[in-house]
């Protein structure tokens, strides 16, 4: 045996040489020379080959002769080929593989953008995260306020981004601007967004430096992409909670009809409010959605919704010792958004066009004085996009938009109205110079009839991948916006307001852990200034003084974000800190000052845990916002005072249960658990002598409800919890 062992190799060596066997060995590395483990080395058309080891080495024998093609391939790299002539003996090969273009190693532009999406892998938020976040109340905007760059303004709806006012952020659904994304404003009572997060497959929240496809927003855009058709299933959904009931039915995944009735009376009975609701908010509405893949290459989406609701508030009259007067609002809103998308030439061309119409009517009674606000917007948009490159990773697009906007405001005997025709054209290209280096260059031109002026704004972004899991990204651009309608009612000779953004971002992301830090500088120009003999601190006043575009301002700062879904199993944790330094001379400010809606420090921590044993999700959110500037006539420094800090601890829990094939989700939230008496500022009598604090509608809020989903394929979501 021993002899045999010694002899056998010898026999083989002899055999090899005599029969022309070739030993092929070598190494597979990446471009930097780092060994690749598990790469496949193959001779084309034969079984012969090997797999590289942890040092990148491989070795194998072949009986192939003459000219052969040897390849080395590895997931995520471009395969490499060598053509060789085999004549026996030993061959030493070195393959240096180049990174292939894919989502894992390609850089993406992250400066100024926060995405929540189902389709992209490397996003930080999923739409489902919106509904499971404590203190978010299943409201898109409320959750966005827990992300860096945005700060909470407790008495008003909207996104206040990096020193910007709420009007500087536009909400966009499938590319189309939404005229009234929130339920109608009432003084010092913030409103919810009109759209449920379940409508959308993706959301992107821009903190600045956004694409040339969007405009008319000095600070930010909130981009919402509606769901695609995912299945042919029919299902019924019923929801009941403290503030109302709703029912929805989806037919074969294509048509969805929804109806709701809301009434806050049960909620107001249970929770102590700081505001006197003379008649509790109530309303009814419905929506119809059609979502169909007309052919393999085209998608039609149609959405129409109508709602009617209102309430009466008892508000203090600041000039009459706080005597209560009634503020009555009835809101009717019709909105339809329709898009058609077609792909042709194997998906290399994408053409999307859309039409939307919105009509919003607010009938208001302030005391005994009747008034109204009306906004009507019709818009059309068409964008043609062409993809190119080996992986169709590059794109160029061009588009046009046209809007007709009618606004009017009636108060007592005074009526103001506006008609605006706004048109825009834009072009943008996004391309990779290297897999590691992406650029986006865009230009947008706008014209609006109401100012009778044109503008052109360039946009530029770049991103460079610094390592496998990290990248730096940069964005800059000019952003124009037509002044707010309240100023245009009285002065049509105003010009565009302008903001210039510069954003630098670093992001590290690996296996459900993300760290991100972003620094920004924003310069405001041509802001509308209003001249008054004495400062009127009432934010709801109608501007009557002379106005011009001589205002200006700036904002700079940084934010830090860390998210970890990995360390604790089935948990999700994120922490956000934003620092903001901003000053402005605008509106009726007599001197440059930090605006009342901005805060220097914003901090929040969100924690969520899924507990499979009791099939429940629990979450807690803590928010800290440093004091906001407020006006005090006694202080010689304009807006020199700060409120106490805003702090809030919220908890949320949901429990899911399957009863006879139907899905029941019980949910509960408790906002401001500790009952902290937060304040947002003060309102003054016009002589500045008496003041009234602006406080939340409730100090502590309890809310609960249940949602039931009945699907014909009742077994469907069971497996969804596989391995949860």
């Amino acid at each position: 045996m021993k002899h045999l062992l010694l002899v056998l190799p010898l026999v083989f060596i002899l055999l090899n040489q005599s029969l022309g066997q070739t030993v092929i060995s070598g190494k597979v590395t990446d471009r930097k020379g780092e060994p690749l483990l598990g790469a496949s080395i193959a001779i084309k058309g034969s079984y012969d080959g090997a797999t590289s080891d942890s040092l990148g080495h491989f070795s194998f024998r072949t009986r192939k002769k003459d000219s052969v093609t040897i390849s080395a391939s590895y997931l995520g790299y471009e395969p490499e080929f060598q053509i060789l002539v085999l004549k026996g003996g030993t061959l030493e090969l070195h393959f240096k593989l180049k990174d292939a273009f894919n989502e894992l190693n390609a850089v993406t532009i992250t400066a100024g953008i926060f995405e929540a999406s189902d389709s992209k892998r490397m996003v930080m938020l999923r739409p489902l995260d919106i509904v499971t976040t404590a203190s978010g109340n299943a409201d898109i905007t409320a959750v966005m306020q827990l992300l860096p760059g945005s700060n909470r303004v407790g008495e008003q709806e909207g996104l206040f981004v990096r020193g910007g006012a709420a009007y500087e952020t536009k909400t966009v659904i499938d590319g189309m601007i939404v005229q009234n994304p929130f339920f109608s404003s009432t003084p010092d009572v913030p409103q919810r967004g009109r759209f449920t997060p379940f409508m959308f497959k993706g959301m992107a929240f821009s903190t600045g430096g956004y694409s040339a496809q969007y405009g008319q927003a000095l600070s930010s855009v909130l981009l919402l992409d509606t769901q695609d058709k995912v299945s042919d299933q029919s299902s019924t959904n019923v929801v009941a909670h403290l503030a109302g009931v709703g029912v929805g039915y989806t037919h074969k995944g294509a048509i969805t009809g929804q109806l709701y009735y809301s009434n806050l009376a049960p909620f107001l009975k249970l929770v102590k409010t700081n505001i006197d609701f003379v008649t509790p908010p109530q309303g009814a509405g419905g929506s119809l959605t059609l979502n169909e893949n007309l052919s393999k290459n085209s998608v039609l989406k149609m959405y129409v919704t109508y709602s009617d609701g209102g309430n009466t508030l008892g508000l203090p009259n600041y000039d009459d010792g706080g005597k209560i007067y009634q503020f009555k609002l009835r809101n009717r809103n019709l909105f339809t958004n329709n898009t058609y998308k077609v792909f042709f030439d194997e998906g290399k061309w994408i053409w999307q066009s859309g039409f939307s119409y919105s009509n919003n009517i607010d009938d208001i009674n302030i005391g005994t004085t009747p008034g109204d606000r009306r906004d009507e917007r019709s818009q059309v948009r068409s964008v043609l996009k062409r993809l190119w490159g080996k992986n169709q990773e590059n794109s160029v697009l061009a588009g046009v938009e046209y809007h007709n906007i009618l606004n009017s405001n009636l108060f007592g005997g005074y009526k103001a109205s506006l008609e605006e025709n706004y048109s825009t054209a834009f072009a943008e290209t996004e391309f990779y110079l290297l897999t590691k280096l992406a650029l986006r260059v865009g230009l947008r031109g706008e014209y609006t009839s109401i100012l009778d002026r044109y503008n052109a704004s360039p946009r530029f972004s770049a991103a460079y991948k610094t390592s496998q899991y990290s990248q730096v990204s940069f964005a800059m651009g000019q952003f124009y916006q037509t002044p707010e309608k309240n100023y245009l009612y009285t002065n049509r000779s105003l010009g565009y307001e302008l903001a210039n953004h510069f954003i630098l971002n670093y992001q590290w992301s690996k296996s459900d852990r993300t760290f991100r830090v972003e620094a920004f500088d924003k310069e405001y120009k041509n802001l509308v200034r209003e001249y008054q003999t004495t400062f009127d601190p009432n934010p709801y006043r109608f501007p009557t003084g002379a106005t011009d575009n001589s205002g200006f301002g700036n904002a700079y700062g940084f934010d830090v974000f860390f998210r970890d879904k990995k360390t604790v199993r089935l948990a999700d944790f994120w922490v956000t800190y934003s620092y903001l330094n901003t000053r402005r001379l605008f509106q009726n400010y007599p001197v440059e000052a930090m605006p009342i809606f901005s805060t220097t420090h914003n901090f929040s921590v969100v924690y969520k845990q899924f507990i499979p044993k009791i099939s429940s999700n629990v979450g807690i959110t803590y928010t800290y916002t440093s004091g906001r500037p407020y006006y005090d006539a006694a202080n010689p420094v304009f807006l020199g005072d700060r409120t106490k800090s805003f702090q809030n601890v919220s908890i949320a829990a949901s429990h899911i249960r399957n009863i006879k094939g139907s899905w029941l989700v019980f949910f509960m939230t408790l906002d401001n658990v500790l009952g902290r008496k937060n304040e947002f500022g003060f309102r003054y009598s016009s002589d500045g002598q008496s003041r009234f604090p602006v406080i939340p509608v409730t100090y502590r809020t309890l809310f609960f409800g249940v949602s039931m989903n009945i699907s014909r394929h009742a077994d469907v979501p069971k497996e969804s919890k596989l391995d949860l």
Partner: protein
Amino acid sequence: MKRLLMYFLFGALNYGIISAQSADSQAPASTQKPEFVEAMTDVVADIQGAEFGEDLQPYANTLERIAAAEPKEWLPAYWGSFCYMIKSFTEPVVEKKDQYLENAEKLVATADALNPNNDEIEVLKANIASARMAVDPMNRWQKYVPISSAAIAKAKSINPLNPRIALHEAQGVFYTPEAYGGGKAKALPMIKGAIELYKAFKPTSPMMPNWGLDAAEYMLGEAQK
């Protein structure tokens, strides 16, 4: 010694010395080359004998080489796809899981094109869809559960006695919490049923799929605790 012997066998095979002996491996079709049968039998034995956690990449590489050399055979693509599906479970980096599953989907589509209406291919498709979902269940069930269910339904219509169909269904219930209508107790009869089917199942050749019994036995042990 074992390796040497293997090498000897391989070398001998290439010369066709023992080609006649390959008949032992019960090659289903006489058109299959003996070296194909031998290479496949070998790599399939290695895959089915692999410990959980063992890197299947070398086998996947071998299978892809065989697949490239034998473009009319569906089994190399099937097993290559299987390796990547398993790899997605052992891979710790979330982003890479999807890359493996993309490969698995490509290969199973190749196998399907070469051998349409095959129950084993449909079962594998169902497993890949479930693996896709397992990467991010909360957000993906809407898309992948219907794909998985459809593939299992098709497999059942072709061969209801395939034990891997019963295994996949039992796993679905086993890993679903009781509150969601699943649970170990509910899965127990399904697991037992699957094991019965495994006992009755005889692959037509050693390179045909014959995996899953160990997973069923593991679940049986857990469910009987």
